């Protein structure tokens, strides 16, 4: 064999192995709001997801391959969320997706999962409908409103609540929360008064708050994301509202509230799904400390941790499912989700069956904490 032939052969071999190496990554689709009203939250989740991917790849990846996040922006818009899901499956050929932050965004994506038979890990959404509508491709790690309400139930008698008004974002998330918490409160013999809504992009809620101020309820429960919550607290304070304010939904970012709503945040109570202020008292202190440390090392602002940890847990859960499946294929991953047991930052992630028999969705039950903002600081009241 002549020398030039050997060289040519080596070159071809190099090209072949080159492509082989390039192909040796497992794609995971990420469908999050990176622009629009939920841009801040979606970006936090994506940054959390990146930390998980880097950690996994740093340890050699899964099934001997690196994982690669294919991140797409759903623009906080349900139509776009469905389009992104379709694009991730048909063009990027991802075998599994994480998404889509908001309940309406997730619900819009769900028919596409059925159509293409690709599983999706839901990291943030809390509408009950997501896991009860009979979509076997849904695996959720965030608590639905009913789980939040159930976790809050034993705390209710220890607080002074007689009658509750609701102010919720006008979408599946907010309306679902008002319904689930309302049901739970009624079972505790607490009256439910007004249920007011606000458009997801509304900036002025004074009209709703003036009506609530005039009601005879002693407590106001608010469900929305941090930006709108900041406005609600500021405007309630401007109206001189004296009611106890309790927020739900897990997207409150208490530190951001303190920074932006100032004294208006004092005295408010929040149902949170991760308590990074005391990493030692979280269910998995070591993982929590690693994540918080990595978050700070990357220069992200601390308030985002309460949102981004879900992206981190989501990708780790997906990686665990792919590992168990043994191959990056949608059906194998879907089946493997039922067997995962991941040490999440907010408790063990294991999926329970929910929804109509035969086509159940998976639901993990995380911890829910009650925190209070006192004098510009987050405190965890003992109950």
């Amino acid at each position, binding site marked *: 064999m002549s020398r030039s032939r050997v060289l040519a052969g080596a070159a071809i071999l190099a090209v072949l192995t080159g492509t082989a190496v390039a192909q040796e990554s497992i794609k995971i689709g990420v469908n999050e709001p990176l622009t629009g*009203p939920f841009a801040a939250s979606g970006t936090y989740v994506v940054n959390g997801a990146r930390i998980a991917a880097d950690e996994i790849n740093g340890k050699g990846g899964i099934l001997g391959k690196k994982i690669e996040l294919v991140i797409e922006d759903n623009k906080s818009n349900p139509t776009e969320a469905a389009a992104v899901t379709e694009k991730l499956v048909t063009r990027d050929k991802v075998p599994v997706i994480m998404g889509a932050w908001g309940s309406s965004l997730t619900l819009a994506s769900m028919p596409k999962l059925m159509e293409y038979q690709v599983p999706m890990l839901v990291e943030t959404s809390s509408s009950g409908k997501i896991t009860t509508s009979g979509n076997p491709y849904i695996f959720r790690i965030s608590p639905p409103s009913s789980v939040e309400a159930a976790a809050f139930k034993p705390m209710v008698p220890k607080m002074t609540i007689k009658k509750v008004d609701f102010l919720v974002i006008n979408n599946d998330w907010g309306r679902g929360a008002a319904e689930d918490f309302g049901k739970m409160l009624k079972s505790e013999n607490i009256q439910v008064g007004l249920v007011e809504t606000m458009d997801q992009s509304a*900036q002025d809620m004074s*009209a709703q708050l*003036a009506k609530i101020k005039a009601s005879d309820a002693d407590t106001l429960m608010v469900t929305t994301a941090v930006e709108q919550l*900041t406005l609600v607290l500021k405007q309630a*304070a401007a109206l*001189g509202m004296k009611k106890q304010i309790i927020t739900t939904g897990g997207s409150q970012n208490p530190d951001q509230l303190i920074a932006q709503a100032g004294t208006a945040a004092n005295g408010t109570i929040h149902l949170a799904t991760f308590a990074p202020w005391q990493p030692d008292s979280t269910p998995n202190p070591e993982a929590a400390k690693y994540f918080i440390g990595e978050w700070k090392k990357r220069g992200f602002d601390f308030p985002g941790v309460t949102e981004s940890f879900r992206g981190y847990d989501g990708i780790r859960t997906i990686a665990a499912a792919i590992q168990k499946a043994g191959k990056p294929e949608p059906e194998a991953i879907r089946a493997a989700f039922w067997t995962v047991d991941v040490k999440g930052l907010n408790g063990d992630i294991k999926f329970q069956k929910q929804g109509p028999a035969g086509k159940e969705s998976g639901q993990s039950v995380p911890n829910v904490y009650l925190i209070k903002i006192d004098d510009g600081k987050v405190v965890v009241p003992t109950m």
Partner: protein
Amino acid sequence: MSEFLQHIANTLILGGTYALLGIGLTLIFGIMRVVNFTHGELYTFGAYFVFLVVSVLGLNFLLALPVAIAAGLLLGAVIEFLLLRPMRDSDIDTTMLVMIGAMIVMQNSEQLIWGGVAKSVSTPFPETPLVIGPVSVSYLRVFVLAMALLLIAATYILINRTKLGKAMRATFQDRDTASLMGVNVQAIYTATFAIGSSLAAAGGALLGPAYVISPHMGDIASLKAFAIVILGGLGNITGATLGGFILALAEELGAGYVSSGYRDAMGFLIIIAVLLIKPTGLFARAERIG
């Protein structure tokens, strides 16, 4: 009764805000006949500019206001010079597409520079509210209302009582004749767009601290502004002012006594009614044609 008084107080506060959003747009959309899709982005620009001056440079909010308004004036002049001047004789659809493009570029630049996390600006006003009997309002919002009324009055005087205002009105009534009478038509176009832009920036500069500042804050602002301009009649400063207060009243009472789910629908119901009954807007005067 006390709830009703609070709704009326809210209406005044919110109405001042809406009027401020409306007058900048009515100048550009109403007089120049340019559908200014960048209005909301100029509003956002004003808000971020105040954030830059107050939080990054550490200056006082009251000092930041005029700086932001001046910056809005300058940015408006640049947009007019670069985008609208070359399109002067093209049809309204072409200009509209160019402005939509400009809006997308501006909104995404804001997000690229500042990120998606909302910003807030501290002001020298106390956080405790001003309480008068059963009514409670924030000092900052009272200041915003006062400033809005001041800016509206200044704009009214500028258009109706000054030589520049007369030249503006002449130019948009009949460009060729105005030009023959010695009006520098190109300069008038730039000045009008710049003034309208500075009013949008003033709105953002005043309201950014009252709300939170985010890259998409201009979407809802421009939607309301278009509604107000249609309600008040194109190019009518008084109409835009009253339109702002009417929209605020409809939203307040709609949310307060009908259903908060239809709060934003109330304004549009009124607009549909106005368009059906008086399509030129509630306060439109007879227009001279030709």
